[in-house]
């Protein structure tokens, strides 16, 4: 089992205090709030009973928050929102008003609607205006369809040019995955073997008590396969994460808030800033939905995620633009 090796490595570390009898299963709690006021609590556990990881024990308890923004679809000008740029700017204003300011921002894709010239710039420039230290991007299919990801990866692909990424922030391990490249006819979102291999290797070194946050555009779980709201090899990716006590998966793509908990993994899809989509299976198919003008801002929004170290609590607050 994956966890055994991780535990064995930790046990050999001189920094492990060990033996304090803390049952992480008992206190690892992930809480989340939805914009509607719904509150639920999830108790997660790990496969072995152990103390905090050396890294967490050594660092002072530091809190931080980050923002998830998704599906800005810059360039969209359909009936569902004649002013998608305006609602995007409103979301930016909301981020700027957050106190305390988020440490960073994660954009979970469909940055642009049609990959038209200047669309990426609109988003990167606007997000630079926030107080966040950094912005992490992951593409949606609308960001890569026209050129197979050439422009996107050129801008955001990183040194390796692959676009997938991971980083550690104050004891939390963040992973950005790409599941919108190389769509095949009749297929669904997919990560591909190369990326799966990278992911497996990336998390191998982590202790099971490291909180993990994964972001990707298309849901990694089967929200509604009939509409393509699923990642073909998502299960494979999740199998590498099952040993962790706290895994939070943040997705976009479906332009609505949905949540699901499976073991220690909680899944959350986010609102768009551009237009809503129908609930799974409602109507003839996915796509922009036109709602009465006065309701539009109540179905668009963004997400603020707070992490309190030591308490292992991840608070997710979805707020609309209304």
């Amino acid at each position: 089992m994956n966890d055994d090796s991780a535990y064995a490595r930790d046990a050999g570390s001189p920094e492990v205090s060990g033996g304090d009898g803390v049952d992480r299963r008992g206190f690892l709690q992930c809480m989340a709030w939805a914009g509607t006021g719904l509150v639920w609590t999830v108790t997660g556990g790990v496969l072995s009973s152990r103390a905090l990881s050396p890294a967490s024990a050594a660092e002072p308890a530091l809190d931080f928050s980050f923002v998830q923004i998704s599906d800005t679809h810059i360039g969209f000008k359909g009936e569902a929102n004649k002013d998608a740029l305006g609602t995007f700017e409103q979301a930016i204003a909301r981020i700027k008003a957050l106190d305390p300011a988020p440490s960073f921002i994660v954009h979970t894709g469909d940055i642009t609607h049609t990959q038209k010239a200047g669309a990426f710039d609109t988003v990167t420039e606007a997000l630079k205006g926030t107080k966040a230290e950094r912005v992490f991007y992951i593409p949606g299919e609308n960001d890569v369809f026209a050129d197979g990801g050439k422009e996107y990866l050129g801008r955001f692909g990183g040194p390796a040019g692959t676009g997938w990424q991971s980083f550690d922030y104050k004891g939390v391990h963040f992973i950005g995955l790409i599941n919108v490249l190389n769509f095949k006819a009749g297929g669904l979102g997919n990560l591909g073997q190369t990326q799966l291999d990278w992911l497996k290797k990336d998390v191998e070194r982590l202790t099971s008590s490291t909180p993990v946050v994964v972001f990707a555009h298309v849901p990694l779980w089967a929200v509604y396969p009939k509409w393509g709201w699923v990642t073909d090899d998502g299960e494979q990716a999740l199998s590498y994460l099952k040993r962790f006590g706290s895994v939070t998966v943040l997705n976009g793509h479906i332009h609505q808030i949905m949540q699901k908990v499976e073991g220690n993994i909680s899944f959350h899809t986010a609102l768009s800033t551009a237009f809503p989509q129908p609930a799974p299976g409602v109507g003839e198919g996915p796509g922009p939905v036109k709602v009465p003008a006065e309701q539009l801002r109540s179905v668009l929004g963004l997400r603020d995620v707070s992490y309190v170290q030591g308490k292992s609590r991840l608070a997710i607050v979805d707020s609309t633009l209304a």
Partner: protein
Amino acid sequence: MNGKNRSNRARWLWRMAVLGTAAFAGLAVASWAAAGQSGPGTGEGLRVQPVAVTAQAGPRIEITKHKFSRPTLTVPAGTTVTWLNRDEDLHTVVSTTLAFKSAGLETDEAYSYKFAKPGVYEYFCTLHPLMTGKVIVK
């Protein structure tokens, strides 16, 4: 570009096309060249701006609610097929062998391709890969 005007113009031009406007093939190519549209390998594919739509008198496949209206279409060789996006969403029409490839089609935008040789041409939308279709050329 004003989207609303373009949409209205597109609808009007489509009506003209349906009424049997003559096929100005030469005009279409000229428009394409003038508009600087990059065609795929063969150069026969055409991401049609509304002005060029009138030139296509062949069969039409409409895209609505993430579906191709005629998922299987059989035509004689030499036929030009036109796809018209009637959806709010952005779509593409791309051959699985990349024999033809449209740009992103917004609402009321169209794409045409002339099928010169017999064969079975499977295609899909690269944004929504569950949207598939084929053109059988005899």
